[in-house]
């Protein structure tokens, strides 16, 4: 596997690799998202208690799960950047951060929109909501920290360090519904042996989830390509590729 991964540490190779991957990821993401979300929003059955508001689940749950997986991915990239000093890993930390921040914001906003009709309040200071809000602050902190240094290299390293430190929040978010008695319900998707979501709702949800993952990967490819060009703009291969002068 390392034989296959190692060439990707070279910016030029990775740039072309992402370029080849991007159209496939984006096309499948759009197709699967359209399919999953339309199924969920239009054709999946209503909940017997929540009626149509249950359809928020098809956006809320995937974006919330994505906010955590994206953070984990960013922290792994940050670890690789700091330990093995891989340049492209450091750039990918900054490529991933805004995407994760947007997914976190989406999960919080859809959660608020769902909380208002169901719990009767936009916001409740329970453990799940608070830890998710901290996750948003962590993403924004990584972005702000990178921007605060005049030297990009130092900024990238320090932001990577913060990304690694912030990983302690991920298990807290995940287990918050078990450790505290919260308003937010416990896990109901990931316990496959005793599913508590009916298949007619579970399938569109899982398909939407897959669509969100593909969309995230596509956006990471796109942003990483831009980051590589930005950082390598004075290299000959960039001029050769873009045909500039």
């Amino acid at each position, binding site marked *: 596997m390392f034989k296959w991964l190692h060439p990707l540490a070279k910016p030029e190779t990775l740039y072309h690799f992402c370029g080849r991957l991007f159209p496939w990821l984006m096309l499948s993401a759009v197709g699967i998202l359209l399919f999953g979300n339309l199924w969920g929003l239009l054709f999946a059955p209503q909940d017997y208690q929540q009626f149509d508001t249950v359809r928020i689940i098809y956006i809320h749950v995937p974006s919330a799960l994505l906010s955590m997986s994206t953070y984990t991915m960013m922290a792994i990239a940050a670890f690789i950047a700091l330990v093995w000093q891989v340049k492209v890993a450091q750039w990918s930390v900054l490529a991933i951060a805004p995407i994760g921040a947007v997914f976190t914001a989406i999960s919080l906003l859809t959660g608020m929109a769902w909380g208002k009709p169901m719990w009767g309040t936009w916001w409740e200071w329970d453990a799940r909501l608070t830890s998710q809000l901290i996750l948003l602050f962590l993403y924004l902190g990584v972005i702000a920290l990178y921007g*605060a240094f005049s030297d990009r290299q130092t900024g990238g390293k*320090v932001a990577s*360090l913060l990304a690694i430190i912030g990983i302690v929040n991920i298990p807290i978010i995940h287990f918050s519904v078990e450790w505290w008695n919260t308003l937010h319900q416990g896990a109901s998707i990931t316990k496959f042996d005793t599913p508590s979501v009916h298949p007619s709702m579970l399938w569109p949800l899982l398909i939407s989830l897959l669509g969100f993952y593909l969309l995230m990967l596509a956006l990471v490819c796109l942003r990483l390509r831009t980051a590589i060009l930005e950082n390598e703009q004075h290299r000959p291969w960039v001029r050769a590729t873009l045909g500039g002068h």
Partner: protein
Amino acid sequence: MVMTFLRRELVLLARQKADWLNPLLFFLIVLTLFPLGVGPEPNQLRIMAPGIVWIASLLSVLLAAERLFRDDYRNGVIEQLVASRQGLMAFVLAKVAANWLSTGLPLVVMSPVVAMLLGVESAAFVAMMLTLLLGTPLLSILSVLGAALTMSADKGGILLALLILPLYIPLLIFATAAIEAASMGLPYSGQLAILVAMLLLALALVPLAVASALRINVS
């Protein structure tokens, strides 16, 4: 080696009294703002006391954090330490200890006055003192981390607050929960145990992160 660094830090603090006296003064001023802002109703103040005390503590510790590494960075002490490849961890631990002795411990010592000002009852007062005693070392560890991360940043001050305040949130939640439980006559040893657990975890891992942040900032 830790003791040598600690003695150096304490001598520096003794010569620059404004560095640690001003945050304490700031703590008292923030405390006086609350009764003026929300009204001097004693019952209301008593209910809000845990939150007020802890938020004022967070802000005053944060205020002291900004100068933690600034002088040492400017006059090259940190660069020499990183270059000499030894003593960096001892330096970090001494920083944490000196920071706690100069900002956290005075808060614990002042807490009887604070309890009197806000009308806190004796049961809740004991809990308040215990949470401050166990929580302020964690505040010091996290502010050393924040100061190390932003040491060579252009706009360090406000950025430090943005990075560190979210990390203070879990501490704030459990500390105020302990004081509230105590004021209702409930046991609060569980919350204290979590505070100790967070403190020990941070003490074991954060110095490593601080040392690597210092290395990155001078490289």
